[in-house]
């Protein structure tokens, strides 16, 4: 078994050395965000403030990265979350990860702060720190054009240099968006990383790998979600279903249905603006939208951007959203947090609690807002600190839509209460993906477990959180896991008696799921295409005896490790929360609806997770998961 190769880079001293990953560490934590979480726990000094030079930034891949397995061209960035103070992991489908792997490196651990603006150049396994003064202030498109077109690039824009708390990092046109990855790079005077090499990741069983990947690719291509819905309508295809179930955040999460949802739907995007679909390297799903802007083909917006810059700001102008998405990317800001912050600032203004002179009426006006926030100009520097900071200064915590400091994604939790539990418990804050993405089986998918009822939601949330953690840690895109919903339901439709019966069964089967976490990995000692084909691919790549049960337990180990990091950095069970608008009031357009019953779900969630009543993993759980403190284990 080949162990992953990690490089340790100290930007302060310029020291670059190998960082050995032991076999035990690899077998227990695999890679991606899971291994990175463990490394952050070991290497990040406790309690440092945001932007401290000694903060660690880990950029890594999973074992599948660069092998060509379906949707495995991804890389992960893990660091202390700029917005929450807990852990952050940001995943990206840009070419940097594949290029890093081709250069013969699996991960980078970056610490310190360069004396002047710099970039890290990785060529054929060699790492060097170079002067980036000439690139100061450049947008993400321009700086990438300055490097060889065949190199993988990871860069920040002006927002990252200005330390906007939610600045993102960009690779090609793909984004490591959430939690302030770009700001952390900016705080280290790190403008960019480039990578190039020609090495091929070694595969333990090449023939078995090819045969299985062929089968899996065919499976994904034939699945209604990954083979049809996602490539045809992209993630924006969810707008219509979210709106139909009242889960499309509208006007800062006051409502869940938007009167102009049709104008911002994935169908409208596909009909009127799409030139073709695109995709990340090695992904057969190809959900990316390619659209025309001013005669030029660019990347189209994802569902989150459409929902939060569309309905959540009361706008039905798709062209405007496309343009906003473009400028947010080239200036380097996370569209979810940016839109959430603008929505909150607007409501503060409406209520007379603050005055930012914020006007987002016309297209030019909102682009100008973005420009000023991205450069921290004038009063707009306050918007660059996110919703939580604004609510602490101006009040309005009840309608400050974030959890732990990270703004919620575009799924309204009152029509997706399991998603609400996920947002509240997510290790990186109000994130739908780290939160378990229960919205997929509550409010936007073909299977729909009672979206307003808490029954079984704790158990299902834990299952999805752990599974998604394992898929990400292994190096795959989470969208490959959407094929876990059997194709037959898409054929039957959401209203068929069988689908409804399954909804009911899932909604009351929670108790049956509770023992799972004490019975793994033995409970699932096999691999199947219908659950976690990822496990079989990891086995074929590494030679590790991997089963679905083992992989899910690695996910659980990762989730608990991240939780331990949060607790160490001062977050507590009290931070597993949602704003009062969501937990105390119903939606404005749904007077009969109910708030998120978070206090009913949370105690059960803790119990099933094996955590105490304060949300701390118990010694018994840590022992079962073999989570030990200290580097190398």
């Amino acid at each position: 078994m080949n162990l992953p190769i990690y490089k340790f880079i100290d930007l302060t001293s310029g020291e670059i050395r190998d960082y050995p990953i032991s076999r035990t560490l690899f077998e227990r934590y695999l890679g991606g965000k899971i291994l990175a979480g463990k490394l952050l726990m070991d290497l990040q000094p406790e309690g440092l403030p945001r932007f401290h030079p000694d903060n660690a930034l880990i950029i890594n891949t999973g074992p599948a990265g660069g092998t060509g397995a379906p949707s495995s061209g991804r890389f992960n960035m893990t660091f202390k979350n700029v917005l929450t103070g807990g852990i952050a992991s940001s995943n990206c489908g840009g070419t940097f990860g594949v290029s890093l792997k081709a250069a013969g490196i699996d991960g980078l651990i970056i610490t310190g702060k360069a004396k002047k603006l710099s970039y890290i150049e990785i060529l054929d396994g060699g790492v060097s720190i170079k002067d980036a003064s000439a690139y100061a202030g450049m947008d993400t498109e321009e700086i990438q054009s300055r490097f060889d077109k065949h190199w993988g690039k990871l860069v920040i824009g002006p927002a990252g240099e200005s330390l906007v708390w939610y600045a993102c990092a960009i690779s090609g046109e793909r984004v490591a968006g959430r939690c302030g990855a770009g700001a952390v790079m900016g705080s280290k005077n790190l403008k960019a990383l480039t990578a190039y090499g020609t090495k091929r990741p070694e595969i333990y069983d090449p023939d078995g790998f090819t045969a299985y990947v062929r089968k899996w690719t065919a499976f994904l291509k034939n699945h209604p979600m990954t083979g049809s819905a996602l490539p045809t309508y992209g993630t924006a295809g969810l707008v219509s279903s979210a709106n139909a179930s009242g889960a499309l955040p509208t006007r800062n999460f006051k409502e869940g249905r938007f009167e102009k949802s049709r104008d911002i739907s994935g169908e409208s995007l596909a009909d009127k603006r799409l030139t073709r679909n695109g995709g990340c390297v090695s992904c057969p799903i190809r959900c990316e939208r390619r659209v025309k802007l001013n005669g030029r083909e660019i990347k189209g917006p994802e569902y989150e951007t459409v929902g939060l810059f569309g309905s959540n700001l009361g706008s039905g102008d798709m062209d405007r959203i496309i343009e906003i998405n473009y400028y947010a990317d080239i200036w380097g800001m996370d569209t979810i947090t940016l839109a959430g912050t603008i929505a909150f600032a607007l409501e503060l203004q409406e209520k007379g609690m603050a005055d930012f002179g914020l006007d987002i009426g016309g297209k030019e006006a909102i682009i100008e807002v973005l420009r000023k926030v991205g450069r921290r100009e004038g009063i707009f520097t306050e918007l660059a600190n996110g919703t939580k900071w604004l609510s602490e200064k101006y009040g309005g915590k009840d309608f400050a839509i974030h959890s732990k400091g990270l703004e919620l994604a575009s799924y309204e939790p009152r029509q997706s209460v399991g998603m609400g539990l996920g947002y509240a418990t997510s290790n990186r804050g109000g994130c739908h993906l780290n939160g378990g993405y229960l919205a997929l089986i509550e409010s936007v998918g073909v299977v729909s477990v009672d979206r307003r009822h808490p029954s079984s939601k704790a158990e299902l949330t834990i299952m999805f959180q752990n599974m998604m953690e394992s898929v990400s840690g292994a190096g795959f895109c989470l969208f490959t896991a959407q094929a876990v919903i059997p194709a037959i339901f898409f054929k039957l439709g959401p209203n068929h008696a069988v689908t409804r019966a399954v909804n009911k069964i899932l909604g009351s089967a929670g108790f049956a799921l509770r023992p799972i976490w004490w019975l793994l990995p033995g409970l699932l000692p096999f691999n199947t295409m219908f659950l976690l084909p990822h496990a079989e691919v990891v086995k074929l790549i590494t030679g590790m005896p991997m089963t679905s049960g083992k992989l899910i337990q690695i996910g659980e180990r990762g989730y608990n490790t991240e939780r331990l990091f949060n607790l160490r950095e001062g977050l507590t069970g009290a931070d597993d929360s949602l704003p009062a608008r969501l937990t105390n009031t119903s939606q404005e357009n749904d007077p009969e609806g109910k708030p998120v019953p978070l206090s009913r779900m949370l105690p059960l969630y803790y119990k099933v997770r094996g955590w105490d009543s304060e949300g701390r993993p118990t010694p018994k759980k840590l022992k079962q998961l073999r989570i030990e403190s200290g580097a190398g284990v």
Partner: protein
Amino acid sequence: MAFLITESCTGCTLCARNCPVKAISGELKKLHAINPARCVNCGVCGRVCPSSAVLDNIGKTVVKVSKTEWEKPVIDKSLCGACSICVNACGKDSLSISMPAFRGDINVFALLSNEKSCVGCGICAKVCPLKAIVMRKEGAS
């Protein structure tokens, strides 16, 4: 072992210009060198060298081959998943993903869109996880 350029090199730069991974450096009319850490043993340098100055990874001189005789990628559309790993790996920008045949067409695939720039290095065939690409001489079955 990587390929090697011998003293017979006249510094014509043909190999450096054709190398798909930019592994060859050298100035005009001066001895060129191959970066062994990057060389993928594709043999393109030897196939274009007019001075037979390139030795392969087992020390054998690589014979010059006329461009019309070079192998080219042949893509099995029924197998191709349009994952674009070959497009990304191609150092000569010879490959691309096909455009949709009609609005909403999602059945796209990789294709050799710039045959002229292709040097027949075979990197695309090596990286394809589905083995949907084979290298073949034009006219060969």
